[in-house]
């Protein structure tokens, strides 16, 4: 499916969503935390059932974490992006919509200390058992010496 | 006095301990070399098994804290003794074995199943997860291969009308054509021996990728060396037994061959024995190369559905043969 068609179909189902197309087959969907579930659900219902990963970017100067959900739909890579506050980093779990997201949600819990609400399995995945609590290595304020 | 001295010499030197040691290590080399060549590899040099043994003997011997010390230490010796004993019933340089007994075929078969029981005891006494699983698997497999193996061997006994290995060999030598009737039995016994020796596709009790070292996980040093040597000797004795029972015809016991005034009958017979055993070792190595390891349930399935059925079929043929011949 052509990228423009994908954008049209997303826009048809969701109003007031900012969409950018950096290049062919890449779609960036900007949304807010409150609408995240709604957006993902709508995408899932249209066929974007594959989640590739979840990326977190620590924008420390602006005091936000940007969470990017990389979905895959009909030859297009669709990135759904939300910004969350750095003080209280919480996102809802998306495993109810995309069960395959569990691994990546566990990963962002480990690496960024973002709390994922109602995650089915909150155990550590990438960091070792003896890693201290409350230390999140991929945050920008964690300095590697 | 002289008799008992000779007997002791027989037991220690030839065809007893020393001979079995040398021939066992040689067979291990043949097995490994054939396996390697079939796998497109170079394979070990001739003295590699011997070097492995010497090195293992010199290694630290660790007895884990929680093991049942007596069982853990002495079971290898029992298994070792059990696999060496049948050689005195097997004809080597003539149609008569060293100490033939009435019914020694049965004794030999039972002595050869002792290692499986020993492995179970070892697995139990090791108090560790992998040996325990390996021991259970070894014991479970025993129920699979034992019946076909005994059925196949007994068919030959029925044909020869005796449970004595020497008699069976002599009979097959007298009527070489009867070897043709036991060909199915030979195949069954070969496959059952492969399972007895715990080699691929039946190496379930020591499946490295599943249960690490299997039964012998906790063993090291001398005890491991004894167990390894036990495996080699088990292979030799098992092959010799099959050679004597199924390929008995290739032996010269009536009349004699001499060259330049020396009687060479025994030498020729001995060489024939070596050739027969090596052929079986070779076949075992080929089987090992060809197949993937099957699961324990598939192994039991295979044993009972095909091997045991084949064994009964062989027994039936043997009885029919006797009936036609003597009835």
């Amino acid at each position: 499916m052509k990228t423009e068609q994908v954008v049209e179909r997303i826009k048809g189902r969701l109003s007031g969503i900012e969409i950018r197309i950096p290049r062919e087959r890449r779609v960036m969907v900007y949304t807010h935390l409150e609408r995240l579930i709604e957006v993902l659900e709508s995408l899932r219902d249209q066929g974007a059932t594959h989640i590739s990963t979840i990326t977190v970017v620590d924008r420390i100067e602006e005091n936000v974490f940007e969470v990017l959900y990389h979905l895959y739909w009909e030859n297009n890579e669709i990135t759904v992006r939300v910004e969350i506050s750095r003080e209280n980093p919480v996102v809802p779990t998306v495993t109810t919509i995309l069960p395959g997201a569990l691994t990546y949600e566990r990963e962002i819990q480990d690496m960024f200390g973002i709390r994922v609400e109602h995650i089915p399995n909150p155990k550590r995945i990438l960091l070792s058992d003896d890693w201290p609590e409350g230390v999140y290595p991929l945050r920008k304020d964690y300095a590697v010496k | 006095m002289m008799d008992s001295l000779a007997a002791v010499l027989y037991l220690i030197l030839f065809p007893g301990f020393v001979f079995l040691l040398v021939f066992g290590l040689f067979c291990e080399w043949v097995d490994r070399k054939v396996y390697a060549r079939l796998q497109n590899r170079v394979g070990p040099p001739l003295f590699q098994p011997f070097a492995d043994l010497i090195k293992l003997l010199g290694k630290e011997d660790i007895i884990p804290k929680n093991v049942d010390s007596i069982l853990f230490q002495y079971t290898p010796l029992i298994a070792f003794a059990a696999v060496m004993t049948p050689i005195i019933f097997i004809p080597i340089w003539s149609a008569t074995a060293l100490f033939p007994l009435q019914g020694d075929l049965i004794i030999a078969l039972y002595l050869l199943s002792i290692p499986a029981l020993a492995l179970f005891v070892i697995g139990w006494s090791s108090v560790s997860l992998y040996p325990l699983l390996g021991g259970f698997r070894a014991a479970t497999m025993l129920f699979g291969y034992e019946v076909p193996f005994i059925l196949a061997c007994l068919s030959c006994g029925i044909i020869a009308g005796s449970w004595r290995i020497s008699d069976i060999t002599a009979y097959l030598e007298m009527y070489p054509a009867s070897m043709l009737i036991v060909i199915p039995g030979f195949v069954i016994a070969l496959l059952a021996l492969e399972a007895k020796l715990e080699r691929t596709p039946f190496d379930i009790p020591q499946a490295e990728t599943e249960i690490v070292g299997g039964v012998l996980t906790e063993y090291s040093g001398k005890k491991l060396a004894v167990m390894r040597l036990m495996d080699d000797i088990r292979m030799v004795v098992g092959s010799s037994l099959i050679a004597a029972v199924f390929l008995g015809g290739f032996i010269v016991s009536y009349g004699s061959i001499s060259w330049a005034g020396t009687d060479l009958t025994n030498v020729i017979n001995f060489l024939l024995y070596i050739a027969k055993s090596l052929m079986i070792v070779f076949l075992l190595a080929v089987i090992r190369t060809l197949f993937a390891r099957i699961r324990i349930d598939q192994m039991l399935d295979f044993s009972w559905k095909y091997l045991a059925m084949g064994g009964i079929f062989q027994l039936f043929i043997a009885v029919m043969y006797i009936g036609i011949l003597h009835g």
Partner: protein
Amino acid sequence: MEKNILIPIGPQHPGFKEPMRLDISIDGEKVVDADIILSFNHRGIEKATEARSYIQNLYLIERVCGICSHAHTTSYCHAVEEILGLQVPDQARYIRTFIGELERIQSHLLWLGIAGHEIGWDTLLMYTWRDRERVNDMLELISGNRVHYAMNTIGGVRRDIAQEDISGLKEGLDLLEKSVKYYIHVITEEETFLMRTRGVGYLSTDKARKLCAVGPTTRASNVKIDVRADDSYAAYLDLDFSVVTAESGDVWGRSIVKTGELVQSIRICRQVLDVLPGGEIRTKAPPKVPTGEAVSRYEAPRGELIYYVKSNGSNMPERVKIRSPTLGNWLVMAEMLKGVYIADVPIVVDAIDPCLSCSARVTMTDYSKGKKVVTTLGALGKWKKGRRGIA
């Protein structure tokens, strides 16, 4: 049985080539549930990329994985080139494709050997790994290296394929094709291989989609996803190949898909050698990268590999996110293990071709609270005691 028995497998186990732990609950001989713990060698590569220049990162990222090193650098280069707006010369695109496919061949051959080893068939291992040597020799001929080829650079590749090498490469491909055809024959005919792989580790099409499996694992469950075809990169758009799928969804299906892909890879390699356009192999890239971001996807031998690179105008990236294919297959691995025999656990785990160095990207540089924590041997012993034993 009242309670299921919990068996810990790993972190060190001959069935696993890298440290991971699998806690399997068993009922009799069958696995009821499985939990996978892979936090044993996190290397912190994502963090390390933020403190290195784009060129230095190439060498770091090459070492994310020893088997699919080219996949990682190509994916990274694509992302950086997209931010820079660099046009990669045609010759470089083709060479990247060629190396990528050779890498897929060696990776799949490696897998086939390991799969044979897991089910106790070392003969297959010896045969496939001997052929893998041939691929490594071909890679050495082109790049001078056998494992980390160091072929990629931002804006192109570092070495050209010499005209006089092409005939040798073609010969190598012919030999490979012959042996691959033999392997296909073997794995479809050999009874014990079928006994151990058919119906083992079943994954339904529905589950594969739901749990977002990637690569040959999902293609064996009849889900036609292949980044090379769907989201074409490098020179794949100009080349003719087909996406191999299987319907059985078991370990056997995965072997069929992988061997089928070997044939396709050889086909792609031949086409590349025939149509190599020649000319420049790289465009010069500036050391500083303007602010921007890019998502780059690549079909690594094990499945979809995804890179997200964000730049901040300096010569170091702001964020590099790596999601290796193995991580995408974790959830389905737990799913596939349910209901298999204990004896089948190694082959089922191996069927997704796990590559932990990709998945857990860190060394234990424990710099918490500013000081290095040294683990003593005694502490290690205590830790081990706590874990051991039969439940």
